[in-house]
């Protein structure tokens, strides 16, 4: 297939074929990472702006390294040091970046729809690096890439996503990607953080982690944020761990070949036992490595379609 999108703003809008094409492209780029010279000239002469209006380490560095490996020139921009703090609108900031002839803008933003907002207004490529609780497409792509790598295919697997689903962009992008690739998805977490509305998306909802342990081929644990506790979504971190944490005892009930995933950063002892996070079944660091290849693929495919009008 030929890739026609200048932007990657959501998994929801991608077809199964587009997702597969991205994953295949990522696999090719992963090969590049095993060479002595890890760099290819695919985006030589292109300028990429890493525009992070919300804190991030892993995703920002992953995009930055991906751009370096594609020979693009990279500028990093954080909200705290940008004119957003002076009240400049997102639109004006972006238009200025475009006037500086940026070819690709990678946007992390606290508001849902922010990446789409930019994509609709700019000729440059816009890659969504997380927009509020909406989507985090490259995270979902690296997750399904990792599952495919370890298990051969996503089709027919049972994936449990456990934790704060309501506020998670990772969960939403994963749901779309997994369903499009033929997985069965069960969302697990406190009833306050996993509302029944999700069922209409075509997934199962459970409020008992025990219900999925023996059936799951993959458990993807999401970070639990302490601020949710303050807003009375659950009573305490301790109670969360008691009810939903992947403890050693619970991990023993998993299938022997079940994959344990986490998008990071992990709270050891909260959503996952520290030893389990470091165990052989954990593919948490593989996810990080694969993130690089997936982001190279996204930048490469979209970067060739976008056009800066200047």
């Amino acid at each position, binding site marked *: 297939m030929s890739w026609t999108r200048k932007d990657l703003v959501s998994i929801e809008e991608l077809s199964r074929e587009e997702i597969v094409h991205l994953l295949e492209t990522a696999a090719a780029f992963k090969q590049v990472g095993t060479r002595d010279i890890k760099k290819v000239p695919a985006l030589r002469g292109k300028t990429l702006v890493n525009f992070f209006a919300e804190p991030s380490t892993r995703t920002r560095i992953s995009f930055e390294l991906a751009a370096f490996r594609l020979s693009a020139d990279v500028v990093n921009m954080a909200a705290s040091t940008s004119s957003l703090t002076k009240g400049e609108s997102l639109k004006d900031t972006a238009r200025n970046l475009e006037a500086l002839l940026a070819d690709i803008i990678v946007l992390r933003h606290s508001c*849902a729809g922010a990446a789409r907002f930019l994509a609709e207004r700019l000729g440059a490529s816009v890659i969504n690096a997380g*927009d509020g609780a909406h989507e985090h497409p490259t995270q979902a792509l690296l997750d399904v890439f990792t599952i495919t790598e370890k298990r051969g295919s996503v089709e027919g697997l049972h994936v449990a996503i456990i934790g704060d689903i309501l506020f998670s962009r990772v969960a939403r992008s994963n749901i779309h990607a997994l369903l499009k690739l033929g997985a069965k998805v069960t969302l697990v977490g406190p009833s306050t953080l996993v509302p029944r509305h999700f069922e209409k998306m075509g997934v199962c909802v459970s409020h008992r982690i025990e219900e999925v342990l023996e059936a799951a081929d993959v458990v993807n644990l999401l970070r639990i944020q302490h601020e949710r506790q303050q807003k009375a979504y659950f009573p305490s971190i301790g109670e969360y761990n008691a009810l939903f944490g992947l403890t050693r005892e619970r991990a023993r009930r998993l299938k022997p070949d079940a994959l344990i995933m986490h998008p990071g950063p992990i709270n050891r002892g909260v959503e996952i036992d520290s030893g389990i996070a470091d165990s052989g079944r954990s593919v948490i660091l593989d996810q990080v490595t694969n993130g690089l290849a997936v982001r190279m693929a996204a930048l490469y495919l979209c970067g060739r379609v976008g056009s800066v009008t200047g």
Partner: protein
Amino acid sequence: MKEPLLFRQGRIIDPANHRDEIADLAIVEGRIADPAALEGRPHREIDCRGLVVAPGLIDIHVHFREPGQAAKETIATGARAAAAGGFTSVVCMPNTSPTVDSASVVRWINDKAREEACVNVYITGAITRGIAGEELAPIGSMAKEGIVALTDDGHCVQNHETMRRALEYARMFDLPVMDHCQDYNLVGKGVMHEGYWSTVLGLPGWPALGEEIIVQRNAQLAELCGTPIHCQHLSSGGSVRILREARARGIPLTGEICPHHIALTDEAVRSFDTNYKMNPPLRSGRDVEELIGGIADGTITILASDHAPHGEFEKEVEFEQAPFGILGLETELGVFLDILVHRRKAISLPRLIELYTANPARLLKLERGTLSPGAVADVTVINPDLEWTVDKNESFSRSRNTPFHGRELKGRAVRTLVAGEEVWAL
């Protein structure tokens, strides 16, 4: 002396007088007159065959942004938009800057409207100082300046005790209290209807319960205090059910519905277009059905726009950060005629006109909304079958924030007269 006018052979619909017939309508000296009185006198004739001649329409819920935010809308531009929508009277909300919470601001708006507005501008005063929900505003002083109702619209008095005292106090001045029904704890930072689409889009949800619980409170407070409460811009089916039950028990509770809440659903927010962001938000298809049901069975007695202008640069931002509100005056009659009368056949044309004339006039005790002989000649001529396409660039408003741009509608006002003066004609 102004030239007398004779509207020839229109369908005169005057719900206040239960009148619906093809006849002539005369205007002499700015008042409705007996057509027979024009015989032998020079006058101008307007052919109204195929058209409806109605009392001037009243919109009891608009934001004209003066004082303080004239870049969004002025009293003059808002009034022109009203006239172009077929409205001869509007009721302005008090969330201006400064807020309408003193006699002097009421007087300032009155003076400005008298000089610049081409339609009648009625003023509401704040229930509480600064619309902050805490201390009572000087209700008596504002009543002397002629406010027609009290409301903290845009905000909602959260403290039930404060609301109770406000209702008891307002009764002394025979002022109805209008309420923007929103429980702050339940709604939180919600920006769209809490439901399937807010879940998919990851946007903070504004649950219908946040409205319904205040409508229920208002039912009980209106029963206790005897002061009429008008629930503004109802968006949820549950609110209609509470209102229906309260009215059946004789409680002085009324409700209004805005066009967007029956024309659109929360699914529209998929586009992240901030012209689909208003407060209360667009709700589910089921809510739309219940709202239309409430209009059809008489539970809802008033229609209004919640005309809320905002500049393009203010709206063209991230969805969560955009201000709530959309334009309404120039599209509301078309939207309601199209949906309620033509497509859904939920109500008759005379009933729709009643919801825009006799009913709001009765609630706010305005000497408007009728074509009785001797009444001030506020008249709207409507072509109920005219098919047209909304073009935001033709709007008289200072703002352009409408979700209806490009929408095809059936039914439109074609001529608007205030006190016998033509203020707009298509």
